[in-house]
């Protein structure tokens, strides 16, 4: 029993990284109805920028993480400005394609710098763990949990209490009405994008420090997980993404602990399909008319 609990605990804590990925995805998709497929590579970029700072410039981890978040915010704004803004109003596949293009370019650039090999992300707390109620809690996971919770609370606060946050919600409801009310839609779109990418970067750094080894393949893997999370949790719902991320982490962990690893994808994607067929809006998503 304690074995099961341990796996659930580990899965839930690691799943917070998935939650962050999903939240970042949802910020962009839920608000602007635009999909950013370069998001996975942004996450990878965040991890590697932090890695480079820590390994080559001896930067302390916290600073490196913040720098990575800032850098990725800028990358996000560039992507938004070049790949999404010019095609607003075009058919629904256009943003998919331009962001795929952006992801390809981003990936290539980082491969040129870092090649496809695996890099070590050294941390002081790699093997540290503490015992709580008979279960082992590893310090990297604790950091993931702490940082994720802080960010989620901060985001929630931003969206519900600040003026910008409320403006963004207004945009999500009805862009034209928001524009008419004097909201600077363009500026806020950039801001939301930047925010989402910063979140992604931090998710990337968290993943890197908890697994010690990163490679440039991190991006595509995270993109796929992101899809699963937002479908599970519900498109456009931030608490839904949080829930979906944690749920995915648990499902993955428990599946591997009891069955051959090969079944993990079977369960993740099976769950996904069932969710889509039974409740396409996800666990907490807004009701969307299915019949066009």
């Amino acid at each position, binding site marked *: 029993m304690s074995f099961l609990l341990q796996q659930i605990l580990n899965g839930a804590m690691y799943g917070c990284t998935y939650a962050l990925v999903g939240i970042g995805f949802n910020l962009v998709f839920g608000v602007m109805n635009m999909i950013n497929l370069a998001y996975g590579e942004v996450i990878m970029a965040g991890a590697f920028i932090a890695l480079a700072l820590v390994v080559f410039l001896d930067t302390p981890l916290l600073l490196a993480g913040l720098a990575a978040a800032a850098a990725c915010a800028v990358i996000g704004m560039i992507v938004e400005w070049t790949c999404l803004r010019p095609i607003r109003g075009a058919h629904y596949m256009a943003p998919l394609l*331009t962001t*795929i293009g952006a992801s390809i370019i981003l990936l290539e650039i980082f491969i040129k710098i870092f090649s496809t090999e695996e890099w070590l992300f050294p941390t002081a707390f790699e093997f540290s763990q503490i015992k709580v109620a008979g279960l082992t809690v590893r310090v990297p996971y604790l950091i993931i949990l702490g940082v994720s919770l802080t960010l989620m609370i901060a985001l929630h606060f931003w969206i519900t209490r600040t003026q910008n946050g409320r403006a963004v919600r207004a945009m999500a409801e009805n862009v034209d009405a928001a524009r008419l009310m004097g909201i600077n839609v363009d500026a806020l779109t950039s801001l939301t994008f930047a925010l989402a990418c910063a979140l992604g970067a931090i998710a990337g750094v968290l993943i890197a420090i908890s697994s010690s080894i990163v490679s440039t393949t991190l991006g595509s893997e995270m993109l796929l997980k992101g899809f699963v999370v937002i479908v599970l949790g519900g*498109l456009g719902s931030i608490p839904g993404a949080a829930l979906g991320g944690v749920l995915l982490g648990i499902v993955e962990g428990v599946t591997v602990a009891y069955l051959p690893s090969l079944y993990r994808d079977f369960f993740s*994607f099976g769950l996904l*399909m069932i969710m889509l*067929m039974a409740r*396409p809006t996800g666990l907490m998503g807004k009701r969307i008319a*299915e*019949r066009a």
Partner: protein
Amino acid sequence: MDYALTLLSTTGINIILALSMYAVMSTGQLSLAQGAMFGIGAYAAAWCTTVAGLPLWFALPVGSAIAALVGAALGAVLLRLKHFYFAIATLAFGELVRVFFLNFEWTVETSSGPIGPRGQLGFQKIYYLAEHGWTVAQFTGLVWAILAGLFAIFALLDVSRMGSAFKMVRDDEVVAAAVGLNTTAIKVTAFSLGSAVAALGGGLYAHFATFLLPGYFGFARSFEALIYVAIGGIDTFLGAIVGAAFLTLIPESARIVQDYRMIVFGLLLILVVLFRPRGVIDRGTLRWLRQLFRSRHAPDLARL
């Protein structure tokens, strides 16, 4: 010469893959399961010629039929989902198919060892072509003969009533339903057609490469199909042909940019979508082409 012919074969197979994506997109849906259907066709056709010892001309249609059935069933279940959800569902389906093939084993013992799909080991020894004396030229001919057939089918579809129904559903589903079209049935038909076409390409690929791995048919393959159509043009089957041909052959003629190939490709994708969102062969180009053909006749009063 065989080198050029091999390239032509590969291009042809990619065009077939692109056409399968076009078939689904012609009713306005985005499917990421084309890779999986390509794989189903590959495994099925290869199984027919190796384990069952059937001739190629039988194996290819069998593969297509199986995929068409799977497509119809899947479509019926999933096509009530809206665009993005449908795409994700097809993506999940594709991954499930991949997991299926990773565990699927059906072999027969022969003098040279087991033949047939062997789960994670893949499907080796698909030697039908060599064993029956097919030359590279003959295989290339087969691929392009099939392509010519598909070309005819898509051209006919384009001018038929079914084709108009497809276009109506693509352009505005609400209106289409309002005028009495059974939009779900139409979308399922298109999806089934796309699956059958993809499977045809897969069957050809299997015999070309002699070796299959489940990993060859994941979402990367589906994205490949998507990009051929997206760049070539999403409004006409000519777009799929142009896109696949161009993108398969360009790396060959641009050896100098090999090292930066992916960056060039990504830039191309962005630029094409920014400046020609519906692909290289979009409605404007179509109109221009049509006028080119009509310039000999009397002035055309029916504007497109």
